[in-house]
């Protein structure tokens, strides 16, 4: 749209004096016109600015902390892992003990329940127990943070 003094005035009437609220595509042409005809257009801007300033005095409601907390409380929660690594870490067991227990329990469980159920157990802990205690500590420790 070509920028004319009439269009400029219409924009001030619709969007006010703050050019940041004007249609992006027309801002540069409006600035060029303002440079050419500052006197007439300044009057339109000044009138719009008076109304803008009055509108800005209408303050919105403040966010109460009780509202903020209620909104946060209703948000989706992260699901905790429920495998071995999920409950071993909070017990505060040392890395060696955790790894050794996990390995012992798992091998026992495999003996009683067969292969199908063993596969359902936490594979991270199986890997850690067979690979070494240090790795077990990393994996057990990380389980709680997932």
């Amino acid at each position, binding site marked *: 749209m070509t920028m004319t003094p009439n269009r400029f005035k219409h924009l001030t009437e*619709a969007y006010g004096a703050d050019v940041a609220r004007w249609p992006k595509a027309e801002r540069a042409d409006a600035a060029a016109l303002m440079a050419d005809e500052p006197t007439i257009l300044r009057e339109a801007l000044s009138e719009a600015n008076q109304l803008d300033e009055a509108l800005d*005095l209408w303050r919105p409601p403040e*966010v109460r902390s009780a509202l903020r907390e209620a909104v946060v409380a209703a948000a989706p929660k992260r699901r905790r892992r429920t495998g071995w690594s999920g409950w071993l870490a909070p017990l505060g067991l040392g890395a060696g003990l955790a790894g050794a227990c996990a390995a012992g329990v798992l091998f026992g469980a495999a003996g009683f329940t067969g292969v199908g159920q063993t596969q359902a157990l936490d594979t991270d802990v199986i890997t850690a127990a067979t690979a070494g205690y240090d790795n077990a500590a990393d994996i057990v420790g990380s389980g709680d943070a997932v």
Partner: protein
Amino acid sequence: MVESDPDEALLARVAEGDPAAVRSLVARKLPRILSLAGRMLGDTSAAEDVAQEAFLRVWKMAGQWIPGRARFDTWLHRVVLNLCYDRLRRRREITIADPPEQADEGADPDRGLHAADTGRLVGVAMAALPERQREAIILCHYQELSNIDAADIMGVSVDALESLLARGRRALRAALAPAM
């Protein structure tokens, strides 16, 4: 497709239940939607209810959000406006003897009594505007949405939006002339 959406990454983390993302999204959007509802309804308590309800929809939708289809902020504004219009409709159905409570301007000592009074007058003048003019001014002036987003949310053309804005501002100028 829409331009890149600054809220999309945060929304994906919300869907995973990331508590820091939840707090960030609430910090970013709650004041914004409370302002929108507060100004649409002129009633802080009703606005808080709307804000809570809108966030329930956000939490429900976060995992199903399809990136690139719409801007989250635009979607959220539409949700809040629909909730506001539901309430305004119900309010109209009940005969109101007294005008609704106006949003609390929260007196600021630096602004003085005159500023607080003018703020209250603006609230009253805005409440007296036809709904669509009020909505257009709230979206463009207070929510600082682009004309394209505001027109999209209202389901009108940009020309129609500009007409609503100009008529609304003219009416406000007349109503507020003694205070300006």
